[in-house]
């Protein structure tokens, strides 16, 4: 045998990997924010819409919740060109991430819409609140407190999902690991270090989100 671990050979690349970690963070942010918007619209349609539009939204959500994101992106990347839509790998991955996150965020935010009780809104009207005031002081604080922990959870899950982008040649954290692997061949060292990078990255995201929740919305629950 005689494979000895040599972490020394990859120390020059640690900075390169750290930049990749920032890219992962950013890619996750794009996917999450677009998915969030999709989620808000779809959750509203699910709760208040009816007819074929609602049916379509439910079909989208159910389908994306029950199929792997890797195959979804493969489909976007390889099958859409057949009907003339040519996506770059970055576009395919971002759209895939957003659509996938959108489906999950729809389900999460539906629960948020449901959590506001009718009586509370009526109480606000009784107190002479205007519609804007009702939303600002009664509905939003409620929804934010209910939704913030699962939303931050979802963001961290999206960060981990972005590693799939490496399969499509995008040089985020995992993609850069592949790059270094092809020049140094120190595979086990590189991937174990990258694994630790992901642990650090998600802990970092957890702490920031926990801080935001703690000081902005007074949520004590620690997500993820």
């Amino acid at each position: 045998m005689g494979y000895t671990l040599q972490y020394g050979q990859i120390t020059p690349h640690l900075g390169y990997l750290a930049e990749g970690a920032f890219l992962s963070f950013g890619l996750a942010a794009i996917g999450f924010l677009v998915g969030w918007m999709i989620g808000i619209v779809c959750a509203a349609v699910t709760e208040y819409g009816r007819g074929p539009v609602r049916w379509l939204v439910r079909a989208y959500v159910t389908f994306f919740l029950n199929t792997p994101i890797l195959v979804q992106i493969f489909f976007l990347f390889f099958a859409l060109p057949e009907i003339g839509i040519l996506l770059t790998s970055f576009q395919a991955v971002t759209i895939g991430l957003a659509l996938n996150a959108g489906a999950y965020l729809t389900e999460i935010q539906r629960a948020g819409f449901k959590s506001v009780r009718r009586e509370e809104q009526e109480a606000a009207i009784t107190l002479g609140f205007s519609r804007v005031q009702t939303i600002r002081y009664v509905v939003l604080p409620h929804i934010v407190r209910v939704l913030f922990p699962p939303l931050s959870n979802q963001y961290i899950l999206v960060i981990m999902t972005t590693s799939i982008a490496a399969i499509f040649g995008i040089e985020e954290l995992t993609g850069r690991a592949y790059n270094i692997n092809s020049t140094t061949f120190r595979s086990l060292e590189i991937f174990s270090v990258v694994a630790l990078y992901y642990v650090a990255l998600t802990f970092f995201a957890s702490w920031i989100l926990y801080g935001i929740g703690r000081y902005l919305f007074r949520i004590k629950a620690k997500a993820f």
Partner: protein
Amino acid sequence: MESDLAQFLHPGNLRLIGVSFLTTASLSFLGCTIGFLAGFGLALMRHPRIIPFAPARWLAIIYTETFRRIPFLVKLMVVFFAFQFAGLNVSMFTVAVTTVALSAAAFASENVRAGLESIHNNQWDAAETLNMGGFTALRRVILPQAWPVMIPPSMTYSVGLVKSTSIASQIGLFELTYAARIMSGKGISAALAYGSILILYFVLCYSLNRFAAWLEIRLATSRHRQTQRQL
């Protein structure tokens, strides 16, 4: 397009899809089962009433906190090269099962812990009063009440792992996603190849999700009935 369909419906091609479907299913099933058992052990290690030994608790916490924060693809690569490093010549299937089990263990340990914590401490005290040891109390008092809290989220997470197994195609394991790649390589249109695979994944995951939802309702009512009987 028509020749595409003929090629797709060719018995050899259908067999390819069937075999790869079975690989995905057995990979998920084996990985999740092993992982759940390991996660159960980890949760017990973390419980002060069962194993009152702090280092065991720290180990279990470190394992859970790191392994659920590593993406499946990276974990797969680490396991793949770790087997190579250890000098073990194992099949790709073993590598994939190990990865699924490692992921499942981390999440199952969280679910099992939540289940154990959902039982009030008084129950442990009562069991102790009856002169039950830690494991007897667990088996006869705690677990019968904790199952309904543990099983449904673990099922839901298993469905997530079924989806993650698609990444195992990256190390060349012959499962559904790899079959789609082979099909589109043989000249079947990508829409048909990946579309049919998407539908198969959907069938598998959707039915599992429905089963998890049914189980949740079913277990919840049985628990309710139990409390009613006790009253």
